[in-house]
């Protein structure tokens, strides 16, 4: 079989993977893995290959959700935001940034890395994986940075984060080692180990491997052997990586013979030399310039099972160039196959070459780039090599070289304007000399030189107030005979001087020009057109998904860890439990639930009938009615039986009475039959029916028919059905009852009658909604389980042919199941293909392929592959085959498939298989999948390991979990926080020590008790080290217990314990967050007394400013802001806002101006709205009694502010004035708003005022405003956003109602109602919600699912049963759905 399979594999692979050029490769055995991202600049680190995919993972979804276009709330109080939330968000953000960079380019820029580093520092408490992320980025991901600088940066990050309280574990040390290797950093491995020991971090397998590599990099075989011996003594496995290092090690020691010999040693040890082994060997030859051996080795590799990728060859190129054998480079370059990801890899190779002084080789490589864009129709030249030129400029390559390169690129038609681009880079990077040389050359070529070419140079000097620099540029202009124009002077020259006279004196230019410049400057001030680039707000991503699944886990666990609930709560808990489980979960855990119910029963737990009904409904909906009988035993028997029995008796008596009186009995008869059916009393119901046959109404028949069907009584059901038809041939049952009939009929082999039922459904236009469709599936599946192909086929074809439902994969699957059930795989395939032809569905294809592989039905399998490939594409086919091999444990074959060139990760499909493995406890299959996908293009490694850990958790296998962690380090995967938490939980629950710092979940608010308990325990330990204190302080601060932390700190101080700056800062922040200014300052004093240079962190300083403003100590706050800025710290947006507000309420116009100036000097990173300053200046004027000035500045803004001004909100001003009851000011402002509206058609202020009246409850004034300025009613967008915002907090419903009264048509009813429902939900106002629901129904509207979901939750919370079925999905789901719909609508409206 093995042979056959191999043949199939080949045919599958060589198959028409046609669009990809990857197959035009000689040699059929080349199935190397495609790589993403970068060339591992593992410059010289021969045996070490870095995978860029480490960072390249698809990010957790960053979407925020809510209803429709909700507005994002403006910043909340910083103190109230959990720090951990921030940390998690930040990691996600940083990760997303780095990830997208690596994904696009295979590298990270220094600027980006530093920015993220700075940001992480600024918030304090860096987490373990943030540290890992930063450290990991300091190696070959930075090809643009010289090696020594990279290591230096790594050390800086290491020290700084440690100082800030990050704790390091083995993964960090291993990452640092990797960085050393990639940067060829010389260090002493023994010292490194000693350092780890000192920090009590145990080294692991990966550590030793890397230390061996470090020794080998230096050619120190003795050192390597020492560690090797140590590993052996510890019984650690010696992996391929170790041998690869040894190859390089011997080569570096000058012993090529031994290096070559390692390969046979490996074979002797049962390890096949892999691509990395050959690469180590090739690099060794390259360093010796031995091109003959290189060629020979490449041929050898061609004859083995392994293959080398382009990026491997790139490393050989690098080694050649670096050792000075550039002449051999073309011979290697021409062997490249231009695989997927070639260009980014090659770019990084070029960058590394340039960085390390081999730019000529870089150009050779650049010229071999496949041109990406085909020349466009008008023969435009694509600009290739921008990155090359830019990096040459940054690396200060001489102008002659750049000019030469530019010529070459231009002549080779690779770039349309290389000189201009090089100049662009030069002026951007402030390289005045280079720029001058380039322009001189351009001028000689006859290219134009223009004044604005010099502006970027001037901006640099202007920023630094560097007057000699400015003068130098101006002289340069003169040399090149370019006259500076007015703009040059006014925008870029004059502002650098302290005043006009100084400028004039220095510049010695004509008075006229300066005057012109002055006028120009004044104009630009007047017009107030200060452009403020808007920054995208940082994504507030929260780990919603993991939150939900976290709860799920909690719940499903608590089922089995039996509860200690007080009995009366069990019932409700039970309902919620089952409600929170998915259909699949309930089905999967049916037996466990049954046991659970039995357990409850044995504990004499009873549940009320109402709850029972609720549970019954859920179980019905989940298609596990079998469990109902288990629940019913829990119902308080007295209650149920007695009431039910009592009811029967009452109804029967009543029936007899009515009949005796000769009155109509139909209604009561129906009630009685329904009651009997509800209690499953079929016999009695039939008796009653026989007695009152002539009085039976449709409803009574319907329930009876249904009950007969359920009780498997086909004859009686059909009798009743016929009887009903005789009475009224037009009447139709509802869909569920028809399907119940179909089920029972087909079960009893009465297929034709079943078909007739389906036809009747069609004739009578019975509608099938979603839940009925599921029922239909179960009808079909029941037949399939008996292997009754004919029945399934008939039923399926009929339903589809009649158009009762749309064909779906799910509905088609029973047919396949029927074939599979009877072991007929080719039949199953035929049926699936038929389904595809007819309905475009390919049901259960995985199971079919697995069966075929298992059975070895080669021909059929080939047929299946051909078919899928043709219909669904090659990629899908390969994945199908891959999963089938995985499922049937043919891992070798699976690996071959996944290594097909051009294959890339499909996260959805990988997830599907992983979930399957987890659900079925298939550790082996899952492990293998994680293993073979290591080099799969764009595979999210963290996610893969997370699957593995989940299964470890399920199977309670902490050893495996620990091995997974080591494996992650070996692969350089940076775990996301959720992965680390999961790992920690597994270890903890098995009583193991967690060897790393666990990022705390911000949502685990239910756990502080245990933490406090731990703290208490700890405090009993008598000898307290600073670390102990630090840990406890940090924990207390994280829990928001500033006071306790303060006391503890004082205690530490008394005992003479000195701490690092981080814990002091933490306590200060914690105290400030609680408003305890004095205590915070006391801590600062303590800190200063121990640490002379102690200063508050950015965040603490910002909090201090906020606190000071809150206490009205605005002057102190202002002074502190200045200190901060002097220390180069960045205040938070909120701190500035609060300060400006404080200044405003003090009437300090000057102060506001000053702050605005300071902030502007800081750069634009604060994302502050200009309106903060403007509004508060206005308020300051008002405070000073100068309302006219206030009105004037607002009017200026609106009338002259340019495009954006009339959207600026002044609501804040109105709000403050209204709050302060300053009617005089309000009158004038109101007059201004009207004037702007009526004279200038600027409605924003009037609308703002209108809404502030509403907000303040001054409805009469709002109404009046509206009368005078009717256009307010047309500002729908603003009004709408007002509503959206109001609906975010409880108690706001009246505002919306008032708005609706005043502006009846500001919003369509549907939207209005859904927001009202949202408000009622927030207010927990079931009565109003019910009324609204009635109104909606009366108005004939169809409430959306979100509306119903909200209502249903209200019902549920009130303990009432909703009169409709609660939409089963989450809020999020419906909100998203609704948003998609709105989006689609607006999109189509836009067309």
């Amino acid at each position, binding site marked *: 079989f093995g042979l056959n399979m191999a043949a199939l594999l080949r045919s599958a692979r060589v198959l028409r993977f046609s669009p990809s050029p990857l197959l035009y490769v000689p040699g059929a055995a080349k199935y190397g893995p495609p790589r993403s991202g970068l060339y591992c600049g593992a410059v010289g680190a021969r045996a070490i290959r870095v995978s860029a995919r480490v960072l390249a993972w698809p990010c957790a979804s960053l979407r925020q959700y809510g209803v429709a276009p909700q507005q994002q709330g403006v910043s909340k109080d910083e103190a109230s935001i959990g720090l951990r939330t921030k940390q998690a968000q930040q990691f996600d953000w940083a990760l997303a940034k780095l990830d997208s960079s690596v994904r696009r380019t295979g590298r990270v820029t220094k600027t980006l890395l530093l920015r993220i580093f700075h940001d992480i520092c600024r918030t304090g408490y860096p987490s373990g994986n943030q540290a890992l992320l930063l450290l990991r980025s300091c190696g070959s991901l930075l090809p643009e940075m010289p090696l020594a600088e990279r290591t230096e940066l790594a050390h800086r990050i290491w020290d700084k984060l440690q100082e800030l309280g990050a704790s390091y574990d083995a993964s960090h040390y291993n990452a640092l080692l990797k960085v050393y290797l990639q940067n060829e950093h010389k260090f002493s491995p023994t010292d490194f180990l000693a350092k780890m020991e000192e920090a009590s971090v145990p080294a692991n397998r990966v550590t030793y491997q890397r230390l061996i590599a470090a020794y080998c990099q230096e050619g120190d075989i003795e050192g390597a052997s020492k560690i090797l011996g140590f590993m052996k003594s510890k019984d650690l496995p010696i992996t391929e990586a170790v041998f690869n290092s040894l190859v390089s090690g011997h080569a570096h020691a000058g012993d090529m013979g031994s290096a070559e010999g390692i390969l046979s040693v490996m074979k002797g040890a049962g390890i096949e030399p892999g691509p990395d082994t050959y690469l180590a060997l090739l690099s060794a030859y390259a360093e010796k310039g031995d091109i003959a051996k290189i060629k020979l080795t490449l041929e050898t590799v061609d004859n083995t099972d392994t293959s080398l990728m382009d990026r491997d060859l790139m490393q050989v190129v690098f080694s050649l160039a670096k050792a000075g054998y550039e002449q051999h480079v073309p011979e290697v370059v021409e062997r490249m196959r231009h695989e997927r990801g070639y260009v980014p890899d090659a770019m990084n190779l070029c960058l590394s070459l340039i960085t390390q002084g081999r730019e000529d080789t870089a150009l050779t490589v650049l010229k071999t780039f496949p041109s990406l864009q085909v020349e466009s129709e008008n023969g435009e030249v694509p600009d290739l090599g921008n990155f090359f030129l830019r990096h040459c400029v940054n690396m200060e390559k001489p102008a002659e070289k750049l000019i030469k390169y530019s010529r070459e690129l231009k002549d080779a038609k690779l770039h349309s*304007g290389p000189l201009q681009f090089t100049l662009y880079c030069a002026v951007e990077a402030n390289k005045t000399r280079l720029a001058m040389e380039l322009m001189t050359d351009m001028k000689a070529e006859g290219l134009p030189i223009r004044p604005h070419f010099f502006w970027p140079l001037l901006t640099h000097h202007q920023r630094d107030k560097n007057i000699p620099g400015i003068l130098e540029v101006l002289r340069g202009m003169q040399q090149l005979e370019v006259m500076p124009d007015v703009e040059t002077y006014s*925008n870029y020259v004059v502002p650098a001087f302290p005043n006009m006279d100084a400028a004039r004196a220095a510049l010695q230019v004509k008075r006229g020009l300066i005057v012109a410049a002055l006028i120009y400057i004044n104009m630009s001030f007047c017009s107030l057109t200060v452009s403020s680039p808007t920054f995208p707000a940082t994504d507030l991503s929260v780990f919603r998904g993991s939150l939900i699944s976290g709860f799920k886990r909690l719940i499903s666990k608590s089922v089995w860890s039996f509860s200690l609930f007080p009995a009366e709560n069990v019932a409700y808990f039970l309902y919620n439990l089952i409600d929170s489980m998915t259909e699949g979960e309930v089905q999967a855990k049916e037996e466990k639930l049954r046991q659970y119910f039995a357990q409850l029963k044995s504990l004499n737990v009873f549940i009320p009938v109402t709850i029972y009904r609720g549970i019954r409904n859920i179980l019905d909906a989940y298609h596990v009615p079998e469990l109902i009988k288990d629940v019913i035993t829990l119902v308080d028997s007295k209650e149920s039986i007695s009431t039910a029995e009592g009811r029967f008796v009452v109804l029967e008596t009543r029936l007899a009475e009515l009949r005796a009186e000769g009155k109509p009995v139909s209604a009561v008869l129906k009630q009685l039959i329904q009651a009997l059916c509800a209690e499953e009393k079929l016999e009695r119901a039939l008796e009653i029916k026989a007695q009152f046959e002539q009085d039976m109404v449709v409803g009574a028949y319907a329930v009876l028919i249904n009950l007969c069907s359920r009780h498997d009584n086909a004859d009686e059901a059909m009798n009743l059905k016929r009887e009903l038809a005789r009475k009224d041939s037009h009447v139709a049952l509802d869909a569920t009852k028809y399907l119940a009939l179909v089920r029972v009929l087909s079960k009893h082999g009465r297929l034709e009658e079943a078909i007739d039922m389906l036809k009747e459904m069609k004739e009578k236009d019975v509608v099938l909604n979603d839940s009925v469709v599921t029922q239909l599936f179960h009808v079909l599946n029941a037949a399939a389980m008996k292997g009754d192909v004919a029945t399934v086929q008939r039923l399926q074809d009929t339903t589809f042919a009649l158009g009762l439902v749309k064909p779906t994969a799910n509905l088609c699957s029973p047919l396949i199941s029927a074939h599979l059930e009877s072991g007929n795989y080719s039949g199953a395939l035929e049926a699936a293909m038929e389904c595809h032809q007819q309905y475009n569905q390919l049901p259960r294809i995985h199971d079919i392929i697995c069966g075929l592989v298992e059975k070895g039905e080669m021909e059929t399998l080939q047929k299946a592959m051909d078919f899928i490939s043709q219909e669904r594409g090659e990629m899908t086919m390969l994945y199908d085959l891959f999963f089938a091999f995985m499922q049937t444990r043919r891992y070798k074959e699976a690996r071959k498939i996944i290594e097909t060139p051009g294959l890339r990760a499909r996260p959805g499909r990988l997830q599907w298989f992983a979930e399957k493995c987890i659900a079925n406890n298939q550790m082996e299959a899952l492990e293998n999948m994680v293993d073979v996908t290591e080099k799969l293009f764009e595979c999210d490694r963290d996610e893969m390991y997370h699957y593995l850990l989940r299964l470890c958790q399920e199977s309670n296998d902490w050893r495996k979990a620990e091995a997974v962690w080591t494996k992650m380090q070996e692969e350089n995967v940076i775990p996301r926080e959720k992965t680390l938490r999961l790992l920690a939980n597994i270890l903890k629950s098995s009583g193991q020590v967690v060897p790393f710092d666990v990022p705390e979940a911000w949502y685990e608010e239910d756990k502080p008790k245990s933490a406090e308990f731990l703290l208490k325990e700890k405090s009993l330990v008598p000898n307290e080290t600073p670390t102990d204190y630090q840990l406890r302080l940090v924990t207390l601060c994280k829990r928001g217990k500033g006071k306790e932390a303060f006391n503890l700190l004082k205690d530490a101080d008394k005992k003479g314990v000195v701490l690092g700056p981080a814990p002091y800062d933490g306590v200060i922040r914690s105290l400030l967050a609680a408003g305890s200014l004095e205590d915070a300052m006391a801590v600062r004093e303590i800190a200063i007394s121990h640490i002379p240079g102690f200063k508050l962190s950015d965040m603490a300083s910002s909090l201090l400013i906020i606190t000071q403003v809150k206490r009205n100590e605005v002057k102190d706050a202002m002074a502190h802001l200045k200190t901060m800025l002097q220390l180069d710290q960045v205040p938070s947006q909120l701190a500035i806002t609060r300060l400006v507000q404080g200044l405003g309420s003090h009437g300090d116009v000057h102060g506001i101006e000053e702050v605005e100036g300071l902030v502007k000097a800081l750069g634009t990173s604060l994302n502050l709205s200009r309106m903060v300053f403007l509004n508060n200046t206005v308020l300051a004027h008002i405070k000073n009694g100068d309302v006219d000035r206030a009105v004037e500045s607002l009017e200026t803004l609106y009338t002259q502010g340019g*495009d954006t001004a009339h959207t600026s909100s002044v609501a804040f001003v109105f709000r403050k004035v209204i709050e302060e009851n300053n009617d005089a000011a309000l009158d004038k402002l109101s007059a201004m708003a009207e004037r702007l509206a009526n004279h200038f058609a600027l409605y924003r202020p009037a609308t703002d005022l209108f809404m502030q009246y509403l907000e303040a409850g001054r409805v009469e004034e709002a109404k009046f405003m509206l009368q005078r300025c009717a256009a307010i009613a047309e500002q729908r967008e603003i009004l709408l956003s007002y509503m959206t915002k109001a609906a975010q907090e409880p108690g706001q419903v009246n505002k919306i109602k008032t708005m609706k009264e005043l502006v009846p048509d500001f919003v369509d009813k549907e939207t209005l109602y859904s927001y009202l429902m949202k408000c009622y939900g927030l207010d927990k106002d079931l009565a109003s919600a019910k009324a609204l629901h009635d109104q909606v129904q009366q108005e004939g509207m169809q409430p959306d699912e979100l509306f119903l979901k909200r209502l249903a939750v209200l019902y549920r919370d009130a303990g009432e049963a909703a009169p409709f079925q609660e939409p089963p999905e989450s809020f999020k789901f419906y909100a998203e759905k609704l948003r998609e719909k709105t989006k689609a609508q607006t999109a189509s409206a836009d067309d």
Partner: protein
Amino acid sequence: MAASSKKVFEVFVSKIPWTVASKEMKEYFGQFGQIKKCLLPFDKETGFHRGFCWIGYSTDEGLQNALQKDPHIIEGSRIQVQRNRKAFLGRKATKEEDDS
């Protein structure tokens, strides 16, 4: 917003190479008709323009002439020219509320 009825004949130009400034833009677009307005914003922080520009013609004819030509090549680079759509006013209208 109240609709302004005053007719403008504007094109929006993008992908402008950095070597070109207002003067060159006016020269180039002047060939299609008389230019009333040419706005090529520069970023005073960096000294580079932002790569896009508005050209206003005094007549519809100028506008049409400019729109008809394709491709537009300036100093060897292809630039994009399109009719200036009604501004995106109001899109960010709700952003600056509160807390100002």
